[in-house]
């Protein structure tokens, strides 16, 4: 399937939700096309529909001191963290133009992330039955989506900068006792997020044009 790509830059989580809603409404009303929204967020912990509040390990007062917001999110999955060191992709895709199959869509998102990382020589993997992308048992990318009228929203986060990983200690990511890693950690050198956005868009285009799981 084809889509347009829009970079929202560094954006407040709630504003990005608003942009997702606008894009969704345009697609549902047949006035817009499938769109991949890219962005980075200010530090925020989000809770999906399966989230347990016990998976936030730090008191709210302390999170506020660190400047970390906490919001519920209408997506699947448990707790996750987003920060400026991550590249976040929200595919607002009309699955009428792809395949109405939640499992296949999740696997294709994983394929897009794996393709993106492979471009840097990083051989990331799936870890079935878990959803997400891993590098040697450390999680490098989390996925959580919502679907209404077979149009997708929310999506994928990829850890790029290693300095931002410390805030993951405030949560049990995805409700599990796991370690996280980043593209910088894997490569051992500095990566500017702006320089890799086009690579992620190209990975999505390649995988969604010819999906295989």
């Amino acid at each position, binding site marked *: 399937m084809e889509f347009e790509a829009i970079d929202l830059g560094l954006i407040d989580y709630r504003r990005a939700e608003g942009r997702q809603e606008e894009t969704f409404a345009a697609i549902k009303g047949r006035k817009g096309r499938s769109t991949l929204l890219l962005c980075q967020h200010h530090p925020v912990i989000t809770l*999906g*529909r399966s989230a347990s509040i016990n998976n936030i390990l730090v008191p709210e007062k302390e999170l506020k001191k660190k400047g970390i917001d906490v919001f519920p999110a209408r997506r699947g999955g448990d707790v996750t963290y987003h920060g400026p060191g991550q590249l976040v992709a929200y595919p607002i895709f009309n699955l009428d133009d792809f395949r109405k*199959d939640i499992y296949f*869509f999740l696997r294709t998102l994983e394929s897009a992330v794996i393709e993106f990382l492979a471009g840097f020589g990083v051989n990331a993997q799936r870890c079935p039955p878990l959803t997400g992308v891993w590098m040697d048992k450390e999680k490098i990318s989390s996925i959580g989506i*919502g679907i209404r009228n077979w149009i997708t929203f929310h999506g994928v986060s990829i850890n790029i900068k290693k300095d931002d990983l410390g805030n993951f200690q405030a949560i049990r990511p995805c409700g599990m006792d796991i370690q996280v890693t980043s593209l910088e950690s894997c490569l051992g050198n500095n990566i500017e997020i702006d320089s890799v956005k086009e690579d992620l868009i190209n990975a999505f285009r390649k995988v969604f044009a010819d999906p295989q799981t």
Partner: protein
Amino acid sequence: MTKVYLPELGENITKATVSYWFFQEGEKVNEKDDLVELTTDKATFNLPSPCSGRLAQIILHEGDTANVGEVLGILEEG
């Protein structure tokens, strides 16, 4: 009476958890309104109402697990 079934959601997905009913029993519903949200793996999925009418009965409540093909609720058309 129209039964609301959990539809096919994709390969390897045989069940989902009812996470949120948008309407209470007795309330009026329009066709294509978001009727009930289900959660599976890392996805939430909104099931639209198949017709306009009244939500006569909720059979599977929030927190219940539904198998594909199972009846979630019943709508009274009109």
